[in-house]
């Protein structure tokens, strides 16, 4: 009993110490969180307006400005993708992102993401191949699944080799949905795994982005009770998302909200 009390005291002491140290860490990282939330708010609305207006400026087929219009539209879509990532990160950090389940076909989501990334895919001359052995709808959060898949495909196209293949497989394994995105090229080394999934990662070798996309992917996977991991060999990098297959659609989400009719609390204790 005394040993247990001593053990408890030690844990309490160390936890207090850790809490104190983490306070300094949080303080030093506060600027990044503020930046995320400010940028997300400040950029999202004008970007939405721009994306709505740009198609109205589309010149005729024979107009010499057609190519410039294409470039403008392409850059706007890529910028919007980055802003959507900032918004998602800010929402996750503020605790505002909820899970809304619906019946979705993963292949449809993958195709939607590919369509939205078509300029990036064309620019880097990437050939996308999809292998769907699941071929049926699953119950998941479509918005989260879309962001997960889009980030992985965008990474494959951006950091993989140009003029190469990005191969996407959708399979079912032991009641889990497995989506793997393979691209040709050098991947981040396995020893950098913690940084790879950390926002604004530093210390990685080679080319990398804001370090936001993969941190969002990991958070979204975990919020769907799944995970993401990667492997890299000499010529291929594979990011694999594993999500448990939900069997029933919650009543709450059928009406598109996170509200639900809670069971009876008649015999509950009141505090």
């Amino acid at each position, binding site marked *: 009993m005394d040993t247990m009390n001593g053990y408890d005291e030690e844990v309490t002491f160390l*936890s207090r110490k850790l809490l104190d140290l983490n306070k300094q860490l*949080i303080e030093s990282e506060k600027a990044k969180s503020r930046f995320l939330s400010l940028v997300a708010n400040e950029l999202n609305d004008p970007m939405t307006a721009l994306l709505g207006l740009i198609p109205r400026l589309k010149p005729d087929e024979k107009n010499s400005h057609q190519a410039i219009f294409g470039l403008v539209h392409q850059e706007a879509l890529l910028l919007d993708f980055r802003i959507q990532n900032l918004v998602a990160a800010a929402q996750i950090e*503020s605790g505002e992102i909820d899970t809304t389940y619906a019946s979705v076909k993963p292949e449809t989501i993958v195709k939607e993401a590919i369509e939205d990334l078509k300029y990036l895919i064309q620019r880097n001359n990437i050939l996308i191949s999809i292998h769907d052995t699941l071929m049926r709808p699953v119950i998941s959060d479509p918005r989260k699944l879309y962001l997960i898949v889009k980030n992985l495909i965008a990474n494959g196209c951006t950091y993989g080799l140009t003029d190469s293949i990005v191969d996407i497989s959708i399979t079912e394994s032991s009641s889990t949905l497995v989506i793997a995105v393979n691209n040709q090229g050098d991947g981040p080394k396995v020893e950098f795994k913690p940084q790879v999934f950390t926002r604004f990662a530093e210390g990685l070798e080679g080319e990398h982005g804001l370090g936001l996309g993969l941190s969002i992917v990991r*958070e979204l996977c975990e919020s769907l009770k799944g995970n993401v991991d990667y492997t890299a060999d000499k010529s291929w990098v594979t990011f694999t998302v594993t999500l448990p297959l939900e069997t029933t659609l919650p009543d709450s989400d059928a009406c598109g909200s996170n509200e639900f009719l809670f069971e009876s*609390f008649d015999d509950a204790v*009141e*505090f």
Partner: protein
Amino acid sequence: MIRGYSTFIHVGQIHIDVAPKAISTVLGSCVAVCLYDPILGIGGMNHYLLPFWNKNGLQTPKFGNIAIPKLIESMLAKGANSKTIEAKIFGGAMMNPGVNEAMMIGQKNILVAREILSEYQIAIVSEDVGGQNGRKIQFDLERGKVLMKYTPRSDLLSQG
């Protein structure tokens, strides 16, 4: 009991609302801090999985030392008064005694809640924490009361 709908929150979520709404969640070793301003009827709840954020990944409210200050700040931003806010804490059970006894996740989650609330000078007016049972809670913002039921481990497979 609450008649009608209640907003359910998952791990890493924070929800603030006003009377007559209700907020619910299911807890294992996770902890939920419920804050209430009795004058304005504003209430909020978080649901965190682990005590400390360690710079690994996004700074999300699935960590207690992120979720509790964020909940307090969100309450104040909605107009709650820091002098009248009161807290109730729930959860922090030891769900798999063999596995997480050494980690004492539940206990650390409880400790973080007590430490941070005390730092903000927010009184914990009631609590039901620790033990080996999961909990279902529903926070009735009309009355500022939390209804709680213990729940079997099988109901908590996917909860924190």
